[in-house]
């Protein structure tokens, strides 16, 4: 299949202009369409449209697993039905950058944070990459589930803030703030490291752990993770936090438990 012909437009609020040749197809996550030319047929497909050994039920199961990675169960398939090239414009869902990744340069696999997938070519698959290191899952800032995007051709990933692509050579290591990691290639080891000092972790505002990525391979890092952005916005929008009273409820319940145990089982 011919290479995808695209152009990324905009600074902080970007969209992609993909030019599809006759009969060429592209897939994008639902709700990302900005506009398409007249002869582009838009259809909805289950999951990433990939086949399954188990038939329809297996495809449905794959779509459910895919939805656990922050994507919707369905995606949109754009197909050029005319003989002339036609344009599809796919917009990013929020402020941030779109990065095209050529999967062939990464052994056909990249691992991204939840919801990073924006658009790509047909045949690419978005699957669960389950974090097997418990400490990384708990403290790495990306949780236990990430996206494993496999296949060939170009895939577009999106993350909020500015994106930086860094090539790690063998033995290179990078300390990254937890949550700032967008994607890694499959040869990169992603781990966590204790910040090394209690003072740093309490007053430094960087948390107890850094994420570390070590080479060889490529990593993508974002300047403004969504939860940091939303924290800033929420803080500005709300004067008070609604969670302040949770300790009172816990105290009440704990009081009940202690009372019962003292009344029934304490020896005098």
């Amino acid at each position, binding site marked *: 299949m011919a290479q995808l012909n695209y152009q990324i437009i905009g600074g902080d609020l970007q969209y992609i202009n993909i030019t599809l040749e006759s009969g060429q197809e592209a897939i994008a996550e639902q709700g990302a369409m900005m506009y398409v030319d007249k002869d582009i047929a838009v259809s909805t497909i289950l999951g990433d449209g990939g086949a399954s050994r188990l038939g329809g039920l297996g495809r449905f199961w794959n779509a459910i697993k895919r939805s656990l990675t922050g994507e919707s169960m369905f995606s949109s398939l754009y197909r050029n039905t005319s003989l002339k090239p036609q344009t599809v414009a796919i917009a990013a869902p929020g402020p941030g950058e779109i990065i095209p990744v050529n999967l062939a*340069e*990464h*052994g056909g696999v990249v*691992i991204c944070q939840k919801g990073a997938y924006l658009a790509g070519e047909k045949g690419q698959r978005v699957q669960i*990459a389950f974090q*097997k*290191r*418990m400490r990384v899952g708990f403290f790495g800032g990306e949780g236990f589930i990430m996206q494993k995007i496999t296949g060939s051709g170009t895939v577009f990933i999106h993350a909020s803030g500015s994106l930086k692509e860094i*090539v790690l*050579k*063998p*033995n290179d290591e990078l300390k990254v703030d937890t949550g700032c990691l967008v994607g*890694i*290639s*499959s*040869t*990169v*080891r*992603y*781990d966590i490291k204790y910040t090394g000092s209690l003072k740093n972790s309490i007053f430094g505002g960087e948390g107890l752990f850094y994420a570390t990525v*070590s*080479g*060889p*391979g*490529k990593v993508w890092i974002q300047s403004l993770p969504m939860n940091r952005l939303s924290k800033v916005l929420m803080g500005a929008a709300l004067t008070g936090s*609604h*969670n*302040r*009273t*949770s*300790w*009172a*409820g*816990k105290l*009440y*319940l*704990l009081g*009940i*438990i202690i*009372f*019962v*145990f003292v*009344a*029934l*089982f304490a020896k005098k």
Partner: protein
Amino acid sequence: MHDFQVNLFGPGLPSAGQLTQLKVGRDSLQVPALKQLIPFTELSAKVGGADHNQLHLVWRHEGCSWLLIPDGLAAQKALLKVLPDNAVSGLSRWKRETLGQHLVWKTVVFLLSALLISALLIIWRYDDVVTWIAGRVPLATEYKLGQSILASLNTQTTLIDKGKAADAVKKIGGRLTKASPYQYQWRISNDPAINAFALPGGIVIVNKGLLEKSGSANELAGVLAHEIQHVEQRHALKNMITSSGIAAAVMLILGDANAVMMIMAHQVSAQYFSRQAEVDADMKGLDLLQKNKIDPKGLSAFFKTMQEAYKNKAQGPEWLSSHPDTGSRIRAVEDYMKGHPCQDCENLTWNKSAILASLAKEPVKN
């Protein structure tokens, strides 16, 4: 010599690595494409990759770092077989770390499923579990608990334990509790509210209002049987244990919810279980009445009296408000009586006017 397909990283090679041939000899690796010969002793093994399951072999050559990764897990397995653990530094550590990862997950899965199974068991055999815990509490503790509540009640209301009313209650109650391990105490409260309640350890308190409203001695017996079963089944203890269990569960499940939510969740679930206890006391109370040859229809008659008396009021009597829907209780009692007919059950008699007259002399404390 063994041949392997590996991905090679190093100066001048693409950032995603270069697929190449690797030859493994008796004590060295050979990369023909680079014309390099690396003795095992210069290699070190590292755990790498996004899944922390790749074997990364690192070495230095002419001041530069080189690294290779077997192409695919099958190649990695094969390579591991021919590499000697003691010659390549870090290889045994690599094996330990990747094995440890499996063990950690196995342990976690095992512990979680054990937790889940025991949680399911507890929910399934909830009654048995609570009964078992309640069984750990000695009767003396229960008795002390009851006495301390009684003492605080004494300061609020007049509790009468002598006279005709107390004797009448004692007579019926005594007949129902012949075979009980508890030492029952019977009290009449001068409270006009229609209510009767049991304290842990065998203290049953009947309000004056209830005596006034009961149509017959059998109705009183029905109420007493219900309260006695609260004592016998240790409902007060079980409710306390359930309450603390629910508190723990709510804390675990709601976590960060606010206080009002938590308290409401706790109250509503505790209410559910206390209603279960009421149904339990109804059914076992009927059984107790029949065992002692008392006609149990008094209980449903009492429910009907209550329903009639409070038909047009928003707030029902205290004795019913914390209890399940009266209509369904009447039906349950009548169904039970149909299924368990009692030919030789008798009607009790009492001198209601004399009892009420004796209570009229008692002062009312507020």
